[in-house]
């Protein structure tokens, strides 16, 4: 089992962790790129999703966008964006931007469609009651709909993060940074320890992000929603 010992040895060698191209830096790049892409996608998708969900206007738009997003493979987006960004910025346009654009494009549909479905799925009686109590539309969104839509929005973020982390890995084959670099370099240098060390790190990061969302989904629930769930469970049990 040469491969396993090589991989473990590579992962445990402190020399591979430090420096500009070490595991620490690559991990930071991977997380930073993913975080930035998700943040940009949230800034666009959450407000639009709330608006569509709240007003009910253009409701099919979100679903169609999600369909379109599925038909756009990450590699195709990187490929199509590359010539454009390369023409604009010959330095980074060939490296970082195409992957970042692909990551944002892929993160928008799951966040948008889940925000929209989450807000639209809030019991209309509750919204009517809030309106009757004199809440403005903005207050209804902030105090009623958003807290009740937290779970689906998080589910959307979770799907988006899986895609984004995978796409960041792919970006390393197009001059980007992140943990995918170890796969690119390991394959090129025929260094099995490095290649599979990279595979382990990439898989571990993706699974850690997934696990973090599972924990977050349990933690961040509105107390009101929790109470409703328990009372509903109690009624149905009775």
């Amino acid at each position, binding site marked *: 089992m040469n491969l396993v010992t090589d991989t473990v040895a590579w992962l445990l060698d402190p020399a591979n962790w430090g420096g500009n191209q070490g595991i620490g830096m690559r991990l930071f790049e991977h997380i930073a790129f993913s975080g930035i892409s998700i943040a940009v996608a949230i800034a666009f998708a959450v407000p639009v999703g709330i608006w569509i969900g709240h007003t009910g206007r253009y409701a099919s738009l979100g679903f169609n966008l999600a369909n379109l997003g599925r*038909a756009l*493979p990450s*590699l195709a987006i990187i490929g199509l964006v590359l010539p454009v960004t390369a023409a604009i910025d010959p330095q980074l346009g060939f490296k970082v931007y195409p992957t970042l654009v692909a990551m944002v494009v892929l993160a928008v549909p799951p966040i948008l469609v889940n925000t929209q*479905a989450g807000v639209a799925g809030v019991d209309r009686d509750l919204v009517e009651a809030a309106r009757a109590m004199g809440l403005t539309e903005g207050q209804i969104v902030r105090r009623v709909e958003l807290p009740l839509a937290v779970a*689906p929005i998080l589910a959307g973020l979770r799907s988006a993060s899986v895609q984004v982390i995978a796409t960041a890995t792919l970006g390393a084959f197009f001059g980007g940074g992140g943990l995918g670099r170890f796969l690119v370099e390991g394959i090129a240098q025929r260094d*099995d320890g490095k290649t599979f060390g990279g595979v382990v790190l990439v898989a571990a990061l*993706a699974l850690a992000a997934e696990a973090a969302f599972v924990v977050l989904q349990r933690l961040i629930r509105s107390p009101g929603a929790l109470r409703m769930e328990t009372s509903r469970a109690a009624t149905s049990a009775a």
Partner: protein
Amino acid sequence: MIDWAWAADHLDELLERVVQHAFFAGLAVGIGFVITLGLAIWAARRPVVRAPIVSISGILYTIPSVALFTALVPVTGLAIQTAVIPLILYTFLIFLRNMLAGLDGVAPDVLEAADAMGYGRWQRLLRVELPLALPLIVGGVRLATVSTIGLVTVSGILGDRFGGLGFFIFEGYRRSFPTEIAFGALPTIFLAIAADVLLQRIQRRLTPWAPRTMRPIDPGRGTVVGSAA
């Protein structure tokens, strides 16, 4: 910016890659479907195995494709299995979620009626449960196909013999040749959309009773989509 002469010169190569692309995707979706159908029926019958099967499929689905393709190289070498096995594994979660949702959705009254009519376990499954689950199962095939067509391109990291249309994207990048990149990227998108539209037609033919608003569960788009609308 686009070198049309080059594109016209390479149409036969394009056709070869389209065939390879469709072959990889078709093989993966077909094998994935058969395996998952067995797993779903098993999971629906034995609640004990259900959670582990779903969790393992979920974990596989989470691992980035680049890593899974690479991880198989020492096991299978650079053979067709190296590209197809990860593609099969990625269909598991999509199929499983939709098959289970379909089977779960069969009303208890219906099952009881079938039992009362004297259907055996397998007869009930074949004549009652699977037909009622069909709209979601077919919807799952549609999602899995479109998603697999996208993932086939990534297998291009394994070398020039792989990747389907993705080959042009990788080679175009190595040669800094935008025409070749677009030559791979645009047909990939076209293929995915064509498969989506075609399978939607088939879905409507095959299960005309399914409500138009029914949406299959897409794990790549979060859990809510399936239950919404």
